[in-house]
């Protein structure tokens, strides 16, 4: 059993009061079933979660650091895109 032969999995955990799964980290496992179990042992043993997703890391298409300037910098000075010009009613949660 060589770590190099086991694919990498990205782990997403939803906490007790969390609304969505959050990236927790990654691990190696031979298949999806074992990846879920390993994720349970590595990332939820202190009661961090109530639901786990595992995704093959190879299935994730990531933005490239080289494209950072063109991808993200143009958004930095568009203050008018933030919904801060509205009054939010008090009974609206999660906004």
């Amino acid at each position, binding site marked *: 059993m060589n770590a190099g032969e086991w694919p990498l999995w990205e782990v997403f955990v939803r906490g007790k009061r969390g609304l969505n799964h959050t990236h927790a980290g990654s691990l190696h496992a*031979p298949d999806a079933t074992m990846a879920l179990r390993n994720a349970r042992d590595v990332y939820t043993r202190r009661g961090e979660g109530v639901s786990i997703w595992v995704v093959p890391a190879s299935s994730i298409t990531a933005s490239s650091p080289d494209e950072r300037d063109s991808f993200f910098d143009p958004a930095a000075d568009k203050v008018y895109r933030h919904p801060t010009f509205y009054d939010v009613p008090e009974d609206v949660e999660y906004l």
Partner: protein
Amino acid sequence: MNATARYCLGLGDDALVLAHRLGEWLSRAPQIEEDMALGNIGLDLLGQARTLLTHAGELSGGRSEDDLAYLRDEREFRCVHLVQLPRGDFGDTVARQLVFSTYQLALYSRLVESTDPVISALASKAVKEVTYHRDHAVQWTLRLGDGTAESHRRMQASLDAVWPYADELFTDDDVSVAVAADGVGVLPSSLRGECEQVWADVLTRATLELPEPRSHARGGRDGRHSEHLGYLLAEMQHIARSHPGATW
């Protein structure tokens, strides 16, 4: 010591000794993920052992869990031979976990109904833990048994090596007969059918043969142990004995 205390001592010693064996895997497992998995399983067992030894101590003159864990000699331990076996390779550990977690799940599922409130409460909590332990062992048995020719050969060899130690789990003795009569415990022999069914099913799916050992280990519940237990206890107890009453 009454029968309930002796019964708790036997079950607690099983859990304590196996917890130590699983702890030996820390930093030695094939993967860091398995390191965590085996460590977690060991800690679950340690928690069970603490409750059982504490209860045994309370029922028999107030010895603490630490007194029982660290200050008893080898012949006073009441664990079965299965849990004492050296950890071996990963296949050996999976084989032992398959045997022991299947037995423990059958046991705790029944002990939920115990008339002893401490045992019943422990069993309710432990059923969830042990369900995971068995699942972990089953998943690995399937993958190693139905994996490569080499993993299949070694998994079968591990099962063959462990199986002579399974029978002892189902041996009724004076203690278990007495606690079963009171509704405090269960007759070990009554758990055999359920366990054998699980093993037969898992091993078939894993393309492995159910071993048919010619001899069976005996005597652990009477304090007659293999040479392995003494070395394990020496390691487990030496700090507590070298520094009596130390705290940190």
